C-alpha cells in the first residue's frame, strides 16, 4: 500500500498540462509534446479483448500505401495518403465529408531520394489543414470544405533533390515544416509560414554561413551542400516558447573528407548543427541552444527523430527534460531549458559504432567507415529504430520503442558533390544482425534511469509508430498485418487483430460522443526501409494497401 501511494505521488509529478491527448488527436505526436499518448481509458487492460472494428475506410489510393498519422479534432478525422489525397471523415462512422486531390507533383531531379512517394501527415490550425508536398510546396486547405486556400513553394524540386514528407507542426500563428534532402548535396532548413496568409515568417538553416557561429566546424565550402535536413516533425513548449527539432545527418553521409578538416577532434562539435537537437525561439526562429549528438556523423545516424517533452524527477529534482533518440538508437535526456546533458542510454542490443558515452555526453570509441574498405556497422542506416515514433506514458513513466536489430556493410566513396544529386558517398546494404532469430522488439524504457523495463521480441521488423493510452495499453502493428495491444506495464500481448496489410504508419486514439476509438493506418512501404525489409525476408509477403481500420468496444459492452 505504501508502494502504491508512492507511485501515485510520482504519477502526479509527471502530470503536465496539454501533454496527453484527450478526445482529440490534434497533432502528429498526439500533442505538441509528441508523447503519442492518449489519456483515454475506456479501452483498458481488462476489456481490450473485446475490441472490434467499428469502421473501415479505404482511400482507394493504394500505390505506396498509407503511412501518415491521422489527426482528429471535434469528431472529424483528417488523413493524407502518400500521393497527397486528403480526406476529412466523420471520426465516429468513417463517412467521407470531403476529398481533396493535390494532383501530379512537378517532376523533380530524376534519380534522387526526392522521388520517394511518401507523406507522414497533415496539421491543423487557424481553420485550415496544412501539408507538405513531394514538389516542396506547403499547402493550406479550408478545414470545413477541403478547398485549397494557399500554396507556397519552399524549394525548386528540379534543383535541390529535396522534397517534403513530414507532417507540419502548428505553433500559434505559424506552420513550421522541414524537408528531406540531407542525402543529396543540399543544405537543410526549417521554415515557418503565417497560417493565415502563407507568408514567410522565418527560415532557419541547419548549417550556418561563413562568419556565423558554428561555421568554423565546416571545412572549406562544404557547408553549402552539407545536408542536415530536418525531415520529421518537431515539438513545442508553450511556456518556454521554444520549438524543438532533431536535425539530419551531415552530407556526405559516409565520408567526411570534404567537410571535416584532417586531424579534427572527433569529440566535436563538428559540422554544426547537423545530427543535433536544437531549440529555436518560436517567434523568430533564432537558435536558443543546441546539443550535437553525433559530431561528424559517418553512419547516416541522423537525429531527425521525434523530441518528447516531459517533466521528470532527475537526481532528486523535478526537471523540464526532453527525451530524444537518434537513428543509432542512442537516446539522450537533456534539460530542455538549457540543453544540458542529463543522461543517455543505448536501446538496440546489437551496436558497434561506438564503445560508449562519457558522463558529459561525448561519444567514445568511434568505429568509423574507411574509404577503400567494407566494414560491418550496427545498427544500419535504417536505424536502431526507423522514423516511426516512440510513445511515452505518464502513468508508467516508460518510453515505448519499436527497436530494429539490423546491420549494414558500409563501403564509403569519396566522390565530390553535385547540387541536388545523391551525396551519400557509400553503399550500405542492410542485413540481419548475425546470430539472432528475432530482428525487432517492442521495449519499455525508463528514460530517467536508462533501464529497460520489459521487451517483447518479434521475428521480423517493426516499422509502425507506437501508441500509449490511459488504459495502460500500448498499440502498434507489424508487417504481417497484425495490429496488437500490449500491457503497458508488462509487455504481455492482450489482443491481436489481422488487418490484412502491413503496418508502416501509425495508430492514434480519440473519442467521439463518449466512445473511445483506436485507429490504425495500414499498407506496407515498398521503398526505402520498408523496401529493404522486403529484401531481408524474401519468404514473407508484406502486403500493400491504404486502409484505415478503426476499433472500438462494441456498443452495449462498454
Amino acid at each position, binding site marked *: 500500500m505504501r508502494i502504491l501511494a508512492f507511485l501515485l505521488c510520482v504519477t502526479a509529478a509527471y502530470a503536465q498540462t496539454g501533454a496527453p491527448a484527450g478526445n482529440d488527436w490534434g497533432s502528429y505526436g498526439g500533442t505538441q509534446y509528441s508523447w503519442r499518448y492518449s489519456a483515454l481509458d475506456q479501452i483498458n487492460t481488462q476489456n481490450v479483448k473485446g475490441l472490434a472494428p467499428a469502421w473501415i475506410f479505404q482511400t482507394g489510393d*493504394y*500505390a*505506396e500505401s498509407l503511412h501518415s498519422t491521422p489527426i482528429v479534432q471535434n469528431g472529424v478525422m483528417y488523413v493524407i495518403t502518400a*500521393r497527397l489525397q486528403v480526406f476529412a471523415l466523420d471520426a465516429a462512422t468513417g463517412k467521407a465529408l470531403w476529398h481533396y486531390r493535390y494532383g501530379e507533383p512537378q*517532376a523533380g*531531379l*530524376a*534519380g*534522387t*531520394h526526392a*522521388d*520517394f*512517394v511518401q507523406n507522414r501527415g497533415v496539421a491543423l490550425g487557424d481553420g485550415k489543414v496544412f501539408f507538405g508536398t513531394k514538389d516542396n510546396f506547403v499547402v493550406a486547405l479550408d478545414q470545413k470544405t477541403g*478547398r*485549397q*486556400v*494557399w*500554396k*507556397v*513553394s*519552399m524549394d*525548386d524540386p*528540379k*534543383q*535541390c533533390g529535396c522534397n517534403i514528407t513530414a507532417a507540419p507542426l502548428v505553433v500559434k500563428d505559424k506552420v513550421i515544416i522541414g524537408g528531406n534532402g540531407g*542525402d543529396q548535396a*543540399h*543544405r537543410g532548413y526549417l521554415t515557418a509560414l503565417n497560417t493565415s*496568409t*502563407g*507568408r*514567410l515568417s522565418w*527560415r532557419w*538553416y541547419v548549417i550556418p*554561413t561563413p562568419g556565423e557561429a558554428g561555421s568554423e566546424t565546416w571545412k572549406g565550402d562544404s557547408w*553549402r551542400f552539407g545536408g542536415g535536413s530536418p525531415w520529421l516533425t518537431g515539438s513545442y513548449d508553450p511556456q518556454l516558447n521554444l520549438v524543438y527539432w532533431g536535425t539530419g545527418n551531415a552530407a556526405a553521409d559516409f565520408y567526411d573528407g570534404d567537410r571535416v578538416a584532417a586531424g579534427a577532434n572527433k569529440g566535436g562539435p563538428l559540422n554544426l548543427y547537423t545530427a543535433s537537437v536544437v531549440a529555436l525561439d518560436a517567434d523568430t526562429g533564432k537558435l536558443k541552444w543546441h546539443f550535437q549528438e553525433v559530431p561528424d556523423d559517418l553512419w547516416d545516424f541522423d537525429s531527425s527523430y521525434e523530441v518528447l517533452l516531459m517533466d521528470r524527477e532527475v537526481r532528486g529534482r523535478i526537471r523540464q527534460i526532453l527525451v530524444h533518440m537518434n537513428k543509432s538508437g542512442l537516446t539522450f535526456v537533456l534539460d530542455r531549458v538549457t540543453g544540458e546533458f542529463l543522461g543517455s542510454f543505448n536501446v538496440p542490443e546489437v551496436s558497434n559504432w561506438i564503445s560508449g558515452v562519457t558522463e558529459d555526453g561525448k561519444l567514445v570509441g568511434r568505429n568509423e567507415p574507411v574509404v577503400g574498405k567494407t566494414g560491418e556497422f550496427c545498427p544500419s*542506416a535504417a536505424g536502431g529504430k526507423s522514423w516511426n515514433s516512440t510513445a511515452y506514458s505518464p502513468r508508467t513513466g516508460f518510453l515505448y520503442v519499436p527497436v530494429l536489430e539490423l546491420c*549494414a556493410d558500409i*563501403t564509403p*566513396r569519396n*566522390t565530390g558533390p*553535385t*547540387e541536388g*544529386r*545523391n551525396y*551519400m558517398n*557509400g*553503399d*550500405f*546494404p*542492410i542485413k540481419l544482425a548475425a546470430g539472432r532469430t528475432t530482428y525487432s522488439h517492442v521495449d519499455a524504457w525508463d528514460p530517467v534511469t536508462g533501464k529497460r523495463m520489459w521487451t517483447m521480441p518479434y521475428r521480423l521488423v517493426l516499422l509502425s509508430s507506437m501508441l500509449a493510452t490511459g488504459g495502460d495499453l500500448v498499440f502498434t502493428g507489424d508487417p504481417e498485418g497484425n495490429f496488437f495491444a500490449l500491457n503497458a506495464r508488462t509487455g504481455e500481448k492482450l489482443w491481436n487483430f489481422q488487418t490484412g496489410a502491413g503496418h508502416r504508419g501509425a495508430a492514434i486514439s480519440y473519442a467521439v460522443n463518449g466512445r473511445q476509438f483506436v485507429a490504425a493506418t495500414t499498407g506496407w512501404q*515498398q*521503398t*526505402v*526501409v*520498408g*523496401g*529493404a525489409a*522486403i*529484401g531481408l525476408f524474401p519468404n514473407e509477403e508484406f502486403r500493400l494497401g491504404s486502409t484505415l481500420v478503426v476499433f472500438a468496444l462494441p456498443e452495449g459492452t462498454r
Partner: protein
Amino acid sequence: MRAAWLVVLLAAGAWAQNIEDVVKRGEQLFVTTCGSGYCHGGRGVGGGAPRLAARGFNQGFINTTVTQGIAGTGMTAFGGKLPGADVAAIVAYVARLNGVQNIAVTGGRGGAPAPAKLSAEAARGRGLFTDPVRAFGRCSTCHEAGGFGISVAAPIHDVPANAAALRALATPRVVTATIGGQAMAALVVASKSTSVTLYDLTVAPPVMRSEEPGAAQTREGSSWRHSNFIGAYNDAELGAVLAYLRAVVGQ
C-alpha cells in the same frame, strides 16, 4: 570479299568499343542516381528498392522500366527526365549487370533534351539565378528558365539588354488586390466564376491564394517594384544572369 570482311570486323570493333564506353558512362550515372543505398544500391545489389543485378532481366524490360517507371512508386519514369543518351547508358549498364550478351544502345525515346551548353558567363549566371545561398532572394523563386525555377511570373520572352534595363523593368501585370480589408501587391493568374487565383507578392516567396469570387478586389497599379527584389545582385551578377537567360530563353 576479304576487304569487305575487314570493314565489318573494324566496324564491329568500333561498335564494341562504343558499347563499353556507353556501359561505363551508364555505371557513372547509376552511382549518383539509381545506386543510392536507399534505392538499388551500388552495382545494383539492392537496398530500399529491389536488387537489379543478376535478375535475368532482358534489355527490353529494363528499357521499358527505366523509361516509363512504375507508377506510384519511387521508381519514376526517367524517359522524360534524363537526356536520351543518359537513359540509354543506364539501360546498357543494368543490362550488363544482368549478363545480357548483345547489349544494344537503345532507349532515350521521349528523352529530355540535353542541357544547353553554356558559356562560362552564362553558367555563372545560372548559378546566380538559382543560387541556394540567396534563399528566397534568388531569381528562381519567381521565374522558371532553362529548366530551373518556380514559374510564378509568366515565361521570360524578352531578355533586357543590360543590368540597368533589368532594374528599370516595369511590371504592369502586378496589381493591387484587397482581401479581407488588406491590400497587397498581387499577380492574378486565373479568374473564373468559381474562384480567383493570385499570387500575393508582399514577401518572397510569393503565396498562391485561391479566393472565392468577390473576396478579392483588384485595381491596376501597385507600389511593388521588381528592382526591390533584385537589389541583392550587383550589376556584374545581373549581367551574368542575363547571359544565362539569353542562352536558354526561346529554346
